[in-house]
């Protein structure tokens, strides 16, 4: 336990996973609001601002606990990094820094959409492309959810790689539309 509610004392950091840290059941289907609530509730008790006038050791524990909560929140709130983390916990970690795509099907898809983005001549073209990407990402997340629940780790790893690629594509499209000045009003 990170915090004793009775004596309001902060405890040293325990080696637990991010789900346990936030008091959540490990899984892919987690509601944003639930994660946020769990995170904020724990920061209320553990944040260094609560320990400014306490002893140095308590202040250090609090800083460590608060950092660990922030890390857990950052990893779990984004479905993509949540999936990557679940794979890692299951011993099927995907290399997050690997840039290359070796799945030939995904490679073909990537080449095609990159070309479409390069050809997009107007903000409307980019918007259409982004909407299509969003639909694909939704389907991919649903697929990922089913595979993690099964669990089919090989299939989940493949879906995660695809989701990461779709996120990257969305990012590029967004940058492209910023360049058009489409988002600025």
């Amino acid at each position: 336990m990170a915090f004793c509610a009775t004596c309001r004392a902060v405890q040293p950091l325990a080696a637990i996973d991010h789900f346990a840290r936030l008091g959540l059941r490990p899984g892919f289907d987690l509601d944003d609001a639930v994660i946020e609530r769990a995170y904020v509730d724990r920061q209320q008790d553990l944040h260094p601002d609560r320990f400014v006038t306490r002893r140095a050791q308590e202040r250090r524990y609090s800083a460590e606990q608060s950092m660990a909560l922030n890390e857990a929140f950052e990893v779990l709130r984004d479905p993509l990094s949540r999936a990557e983390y679940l794979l890692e916990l299951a011993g099927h970690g995907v290399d997050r820094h690997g840039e290359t795509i070796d799945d030939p099907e995904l490679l073909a898809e990537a080449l095609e959409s990159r070309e479409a983005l390069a050809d997009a001549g107007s903000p409307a073209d980019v918007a259409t492309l982004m909407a299509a990407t969003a639909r694909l990402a939704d389907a991919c997340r649903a697929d990922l959810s089913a595979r993690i629940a099964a669990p089919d780790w090989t299939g989940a790893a493949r879906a995660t790689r695809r989701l990461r690629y779709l996120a990257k594509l969305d990012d590029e499209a967004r940058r492209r539309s910023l360049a058009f000045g489409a988002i600025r009003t």
Partner: protein
Amino acid sequence: MSLLQIHEPGATPEPHASGGAVGIDLGTTNTVVAVAQGGAVDVIRNPDGHALIPSVVAYTADGPLVGEAARRMLLDDADLVVTSIKRLMGRGAKDVATMGGTAAYTMAPGDGMARIVVAGRTYSPVEISAEILRAAKARAEHALGRTVDRAVITVPAYFDDAARAATKDAAKLAGLDVLRLINEPTAAALAYGLDQGAEGLYAVYDLGGGTFDVSLLKLEKGVFRVIATGGDAALGGDDFDAALAQRFLAERAAIRGPETPTQAEVKLTMAGARLAKECLSWQERGTWCVEIGGAMTHHAVDQAAFEVVIADLVERTIGITADVLAEARIAIADVKGVVLVGGSTRVPLVRRRVQALFGREPLADINPDEVVAAGAALQAEALTVGGGTLLLDVTPLTLGIETMGGLVEAIVPRNAPIPLARAQEFTTYQDGQTAMAIHVVQGERETVDGCRSLARFELHGIPPMVAGAARIGVTFAVDADGLLTVAARERTTGVAADVTVRPSYGLEEGEIERLLRESMINARADMIKRLLIEARVEADRTLAALAGALKTDGDLVDAAERHAIEDGAETLRRAAAGTDRDAIALAVEELGRATAAFAERRMDRGIGAALTGQSVERLAAKLSG
């Protein structure tokens, strides 16, 4: 001392009660100090009712002068006066050369931290800011009648690590223990949120004298969570002044040909432009004059013309705001309110553009000059006394290290919640390499030259291995103040190596200690000054208590006694206006003697009243029991 008895029962002020910490908004143009008690904020004002301490320091022959007095010296002794020093906090000499609106400084030679020369002496921005903080501290001490040594100080959200560290150093020099550095927009949101019980997504648009910040916050059940922040640490009302001054000078040049104004004349032209800007916030048009080389020219400007002059600057802030929203993937319709902070948001064009962007009237009902200090005071109380609210803030800029070819490898992204720790592994690129230089940078560009250099350090003692075999873990930790510490360690062998982090643009090693030593030498003078202030506070309090006593119980003194008391009070008033602490103490004592009999009679009356009350109460208790 018998005079103390004059205080009304229960109304006796406690002279040196150790109370909560203060909140200080250390602004580019003005500094404000406030204190909170029970969630109610008191912005501390001088006897004239002014809350703003101009962030202006004048280095006179008699020592430094801060605030309004220093600002007035701009007219006659502009060479001795430093303004807008916040813009140089944490900056290197090289950065300053490329900044706008800094023609008014004489930079000291050297390529480390930017330093300026005033009246033949070199000062660092840290020392100059410390003077301003000392003035804020003194004002708070005078008003509260106690020592103030702890504070929450606000910084622009977009301040980088070097500027934050410099601010903390300045506080240390001023004798203030910084409980927390908090971001200005967050402080403003705190003041608004607590005031209005707001929930949901809010944007804070903060355009100050020298910095622009925009923050998006989610307010829920007393938690203020910053979602994203952006801004420009070198864009503010000063730039409006500079742009208008440019116009004045261009108009002059068109009539009179090229001129080379002195630095003092540049400062005065800027001050004139600033006045024009302020007037044009509420009046349609006006005429201002510029004097260079003894020749005066007149310049007529109306609001429309002024808006043309500043249009590009305002658009930059609007563009940054739109980018922050887009990057956080937040639709404008989801923003429940926009808060305006900073004196520059009084400019009508700024208000109109913010309103147009968000499609709603911005909130500005708390004085934009005081709202940040108010939030800082609330946070100071929450940190010391405890409270339900919590601020969760983020990193403003990406932190990374230099890798091969001058590229930056990001370690901590911007808008990551703090406090945080991130580790990344690096390796050697040469066989037998035993040392590694680590260059820490901050910024959004992918190359080192596009980022701010924060620190360089070397990791020694790596055991010789083939290239790529060593595993060097570099850990970045950002604390709740937004300050970074970096550690590095070679992992395969467990060899811990010494790491020294030297800030690229901070004070040099030992300099803080030297400055603190110097201030210790001055401490005696400071102590005498403080004792004088305390004696004056005591005198004021005594006189106020006496006036109150005479008002309620004036019938207890006869004409001769009243005459003696008034004589004593007058002597005390005169002594308090002087600088002799002993004379003040003596006058307090003498007034005490003159009022002793009066005090005794009041006591009798008070006890009589209390006894009467008590007996009735007892009687009532007996009857009912």
